[in-house]
């Protein structure tokens, strides 16, 4: 495999990251990123590879987490002694079994039928989690102590660093498995069924069976990610199963791009970082993420990975320079427009008081701050409208060059 070097580089990067980000806070964020990466990759196995849009993927994540949390709790009570390093496997098994049970119903049909069943099952499980207290622990969820299990290699997982390395190893292995799955006959047939189930059927493959295999793989690694989540937080609640969590992972995949294996990785890292950092500054982080999603679907249907790839290609054929000028001319109005929009939203979210940004003081009750911001936004929008055609033209010209280049 020619990509062996890349995998080694990723492993080294995962190894050295905690050396430069060694505070408990940043280790926590790194941990969340790792978990999100595995979850998003498992989701993209369904969406990008199998063409199956699911609104209920959090179910397998959550159930994997509950299995791990129960194992931790039983370890605490002394009735089960499973080393912590094996809990992700328990979670993966949980995800696999749940996917087998629910997936055998939902994967018979693709398309809208699959999506609606996934939504129904997601809601069902989220509701059941609050009712079936014995397993799901009601609103309090299930909590456990990750240090309670038997130590392995003298490691008790009390420190955040140890938890990070544990997660890193499992996420690395999981990513390796999901990448390999794309190269197996079953993984390739999942793409074939995504593209044309009728043709796949006439070549001798049962689309339902191929979809089920794809679903099982996705469920397994979602379960593993859920177990890592439970280990990291030492608690899991019904929120992990819910459609909000399922929407989050959809957003990650869309933002990063579903067309490439690394797209969801990009989306998961960025979104985790944004969520973690934004919550310090604003109460509107979910609103911004929603706007980001809408913007992404409208303007970047291929996601960031597609954009990066196109920029890379233009870099290699040296047409990137032709884009630099129009891009620079658009940058300032875009920045003004976006910041004015953000400030307006922040003002709207306040009942009174003063919004302070750097040297700027904006009283929420004063008409001047509203009109000032709206006026600035309007001017920026007009400027942007004047500059955009040049950028679009340059982009199209580069596109034409790209087509000539890619098809000799």
């Amino acid at each position, binding site marked *: 495999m020619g990509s062996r070097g890349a995998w080694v580089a990723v492993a080294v990067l995962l190894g050295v990251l905690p050396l430069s980000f060694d505070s408990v806070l940043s280790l926590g964020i790194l941990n969340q990123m790792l978990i999100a990466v595995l979850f998003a990759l498992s989701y993209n196995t369904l969406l990008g590879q199998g063409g199956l849009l699911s609104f209920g993927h959090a179910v397998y994540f959550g159930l994997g987490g509950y299995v791990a949390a129960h194992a931790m709790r039983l370890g605490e009570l002394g009735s089960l002694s499973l080393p912590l390093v094996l809990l992700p496997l328990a979670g993966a098994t949980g995800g696999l079994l749940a996917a087998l049970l629910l997936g055998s119903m939902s994967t018979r049909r693709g398309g809208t039928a699959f999506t609606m069943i996934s939504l129904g099952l997601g809601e069902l499980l989220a509701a059941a989690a609050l009712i079936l207290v014995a397993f799901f622990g009601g609103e309090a969820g299930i909590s456990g102590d990750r240090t309670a299990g038997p130590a392995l290699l003298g490691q008790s997982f009390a420190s955040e660093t140890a938890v990070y390395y544990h997660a890193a190893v499992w996420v690395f292995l999981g990513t390796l498995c999901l990448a390999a799955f794309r*190269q197996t*006959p*079953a993984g*390739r047939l999942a793409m074939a069924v995504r*593209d*044309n189930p009728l043709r796949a059927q006439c070549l001798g493959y049962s689309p339902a069976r191929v979809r089920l295999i794809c679903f099982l793989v996705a469920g397994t690694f979602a379960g593993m990610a859920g177990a890592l989540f439970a280990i990291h937080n030492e608690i899991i609640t019904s929120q992990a199963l819910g459609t909000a969590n399922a929407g989050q992972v959809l957003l990650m995949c869309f933002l990063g791009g579903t067309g490439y294996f690394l797209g969801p990785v990009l989306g998961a890292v960025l979104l985790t970082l944004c969520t973690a950092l934004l919550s310090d500054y604003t109460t509107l982080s979910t609103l911004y993420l929603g706007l980001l999603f809408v913007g992404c679907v409208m303007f970047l249907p291929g996601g960031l990975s597609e954009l990066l790839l196109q920029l890379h290609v233009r870099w290699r054929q040296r047409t990137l320079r032709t884009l630099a000028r129009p891009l620079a001319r658009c940058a300032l109005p875009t920045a003004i427009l976006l910041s004015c929009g953000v400030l307006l939203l922040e003002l709207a979210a306040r009942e009174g008081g003063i919004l302070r940004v750097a040297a700027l003081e904006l009283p929420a009750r004063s008409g001047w701050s509203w009109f000032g911001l709206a006026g600035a936004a309007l001017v920026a929008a007009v400027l942007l409208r004047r500059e955009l055609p040049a950028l679009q033209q340059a982009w199209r010209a580069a596109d034409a060059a790209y087509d000539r280049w890619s098809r000799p």
Partner: protein
Amino acid sequence: MSLLRLDRVSMQFGRTRVLQDVSLRVEAGECHAIIGPNGAGKSTLFHLISGLLTPASGRIEFAGEPIHGLPSEQIARRGIARSFQISQLFPRLSVAENLRCALLWPMGYGCSLRHLLGREKALNARVDALLEALGLQALREVPAGELAYAAQRALELGLAIAGDARLILLDEPVAGMSHSEAAAALALIRRVTAERALLLVEHDMSVVFELADRITVLAQGEVIATDTPARIRANPRVQEVYLGSTVAAEAGGPRDA
């Protein structure tokens, strides 16, 4: 024993009768063409044989076993491959990947999780051989959805002939191709179906009369005649309902009855 045998097969959509008591036999190794005017039920017949539709009544047997009512994938696994009138490819997969998918079942991989495709030398050698036979080597990494029409038709044909099917159904394999492309496709069809049975729907009469050992004429859902090309051309009833002057004109030259 015939390889494929249709026995009084009927099909209707709602109250519209599309096929009425169609009986047909395809012998091992023969090339059997089905001709008929538009709406005669030719494509419906293909859908019935390949399991995309289930006949309202009648029997379809392949190699002595009934196959009507089986799902398509089961029928494909028994050894019936088909092409479509409107290309049915995997648009986001490359040309080579399309062919590889067509070979996975015949070569025994199925939905395996234990093999990595890049390492399967025999499989990839066969993909290369197919690409060469189809004249698609230069396009091997191009997504099928971005191919020009002729290349799409070539790949469609490739998907049908890739496996080891004993019977191949081709639905207008050379429609829309240029003269030279059609000639190359015909040569390829003849080569790969030398040992196999071929059931062909084609509007181009020169192709039909060149390839077919026997011809069945279908009109308004009924079989009018099944015979050798020479006798079909001479059959007055066939001329009356369908062929008329087209055969003489398109097959070229004086009748060799």
